[in-house]
């Protein structure tokens, strides 16, 4: 098991290097730092001095890959590639355009992101699986059919609609909770409840349908027939046999998401004014702060790879037949 984990972590290294090279190519080769400076400073009437100053402030004035002017190891280390891309491996993300340290910003913003993402995730999972089991219990009846129709209809509604509609109805018409904002401690609850509920409702359509398909596939198998033949009530068949055996396909889709919860939801956080990583990313995109976007891309891929590893490990927990080697 440990050997497996170590080997998987080693596999992750070439992928992260690939991600790093890709973002490097995207941000520094497709567009030179000069282009970016011109864009940030306004395309017209920009002096070469202003561009030089902009680049120097951000450390973009070095050569891309090879510094011929420097001596020793500095030929490699005193370059944009090393200072901007390689250093990300050491969790050194540099500074944002407003001069703040990105790594520090990320650690402080992680809390609010998790405070929304974790309850949404757990509650969403619980609600969707319960609904799916309910539909499967009443399979091939009108209830099942109308449930599926409802799911397809809910899937077809834009996520923006849920957020805008929810804010309007709950906060503006009913005045139940504040429209947006964030507070520390227990105060946070009144800000969190609406985004969490909206997040759950927005995701319910597609996930319920997905779990229902999994359960239906499982319910046609022989062991289910055996369980019924033993005289077990349908309730026990569903909860003790079908649900457990459906764990593998469910885990495949679910566990990989857990680490990326740190990243927060872009839309929810920016609509509700939550100072998390999602709104940080959106602000960076709008302000065209390339350093922040680059860091978030890197962190996102690290988390995704961790998620894949966790998925494989969770298989061994859910299914004793699975052996990792």
């Amino acid at each position, binding site marked *: 098991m440990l050997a497996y984990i170590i080997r998987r972590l080693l596999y992750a290294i070439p992928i992260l290097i690939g991600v790093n090279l890709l*973002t490097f190519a995207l941000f520094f080769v497709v567009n030179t730092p000069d282009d970016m400076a011109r864009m940030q400073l306004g395309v017209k009437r920009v002096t070469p001095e202003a561009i030089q100053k902009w680049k120097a402030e951000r450390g973009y004035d070095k050569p891309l890959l090879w510094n011929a002017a420097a001596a020793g190891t500095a030929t490699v280390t005193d370059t944009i590639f090393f200072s901007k891309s390689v250093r990300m491996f050491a969790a050194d993300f540099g500074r944002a355009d407003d001069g703040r340290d990105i790594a520090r910003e990320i650690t402080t913003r992680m809390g609010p992101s998790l405070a929304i993402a974790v309850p949404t995730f757990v509650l969403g999972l619980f609600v969707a699986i319960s609904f799916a089991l309910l539909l499967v219990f009443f399979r091939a009846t009108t209830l099942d059919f109308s449930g599926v129709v409802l799911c397809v209809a809910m899937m077809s509604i834009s996520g923006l609609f849920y957020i805008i509609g929810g804010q309007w109805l709950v906060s503006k018409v009913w005045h139940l909770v504040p429209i947006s904002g964030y507070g520390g401690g227990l105060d946070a609850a009144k800000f969190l409840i609406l985004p969490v509920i909206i997040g759950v409702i927005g995701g319910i359509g597609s996930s319920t349908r997905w779990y229902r398909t999994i359960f239906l596939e499982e319910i046609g198998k022989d062991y289910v027939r055996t369980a019924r033949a033993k005289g077990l009530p349908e309730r026990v068949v569903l909860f003790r046999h079908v649900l457990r055996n459906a764990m593998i396909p469910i885990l495949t889709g679910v566990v990989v998401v857990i680490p990326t919860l740190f990243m927060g939801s872009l839309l929810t956080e920016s609509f509700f004014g939550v100072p998390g990583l999602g709104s940080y990313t959106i602000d960076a995109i709008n302000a065209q702060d390339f350093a922040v976007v680059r860091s978030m891309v890197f962190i996102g891929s690290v988390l995704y790879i961790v998620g894949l590893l966790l998925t494989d490990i969770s298989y061994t927990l859910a299914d004793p037949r699975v052996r990792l080697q």
Partner: protein
Amino acid sequence: MSFQPVVLWSDALLFVLIAVIVALTLWARRQEALRAAWARVLKDGVAMAAATVLAVFVLIGLLDSLHYRARLPDQPGTTARYAVEVNSALDALLSDLRLRAEKTYSAPLATHLYSKEALADSTQREFPRLKFGGAHLGQDLSNHEFDIAIRVSRGCAGGLVIWLLLVWILVRTLGLELRGRFPFVVSLSNHGRGSKRPFDKLRANGGSDTAQGAASGAIFITLLPILLLFGIAISLGGGYHVFGTDKVGQDVLYLSLKSIRTGLLIGTLTTLVMLPVAVLLGILAGYVGGWVDDVIQYLYTTLSSIPGVLLIAAAVLMMQVIIDTHPQWFATSAERADARLLALCLILGMTSWTGVARLLRGETLKLRELEFVQAAQAFGVGRLAIMRRHILPNLMHIVLIALVMDFSGLVLAEAVLSYVGVGVDPTTISFGTMINTARMELAREPMVWWSLLAAFSFMFALVLAANLFADAVRDAFDPRSS
């Protein structure tokens, strides 16, 4: 000529796409298995109702893809000059809606502006009358509601007449038979083609005949509300702004109709861009194996490990820099917006081919071991020929399913991306830009809700139809579903 046709890049690609679809349809008609699968889709009432709605959207999108530049009035001694503005056939059809712009917001069917203004002839601030909305009523507004009711019923009547006409034409030309029962069950029989005993036909076909009838009936029943809505919109649109006007006074109905093309383009061109790459790499990885497989797997694992939105955001930011630093590439602003739309499709495609490639690789691995491929190998058929002749046709169902399943997700993604600021050009009319501009106005009192609601309703209709149709196609083509 009184106009100069303009073919934008996205138009050209759209026409290529349609040519490909027509060619594939002709080819599929000759394939027994494909014909059987499509016949299953054609017999599905829900699928055909969804297809009807989609067809209406596609028609509007196609009309909006025939672009031209109008000719300016001739001046003596000069050659013909054309307007800078690029319009489409849809713009020409809707010129009434396009040109009757108000000053700013007005509610649906309103006669007065949304905000108060100081009028010239009075000291108080009042709601000024709209320039066009309800202008035919004159000064007497007491029959405003009566006028609306008249127009609605006139529109309904018109829609109903056109519907009856259409049903009659379809029944006559296609040999569909209407049975006098509601919901009009229409059945295919060889009525007009010289068959003397339709009941023999019915018996020979067994149950499928009535299924076919239910499907045609579904088309007619779907057409009825669509035509009624069209009738009402045309009748009301002659005198009012049916969905109100937006911040700069543009008619929201016009904006919604224009958004359809953007949504369709993003939903289809993205997959078109993505497919060749995904198919080629997926088959190569699965069939050739070895280091080719390793490289391709590495490639798509790396790409898919970057969270989609972030990769798209990064790529779009970079694309913006390129477009902004090379203004000389684009002659008109329409061309620039079009280039940006295409680039967005390209970026979305580049980030989303990984899933399809992975599926195709897995399926190729399975196919490679089957007898018919082994037989071809034993006969000495070349690798390329095997991949083209034996592997590719057996993967087409996955490709088709991916194509239809991705569509609705992409339409929804456009709105989100435009909100994040990495979507289409702000001057391109799309559901995303509509929602994005309308979102700001929710805080106003009284609320400006109409453009949001219009955008969401149109999007809902399009995505719901696409989802339902995609489900039917998947059920018919997926060998795992029975």
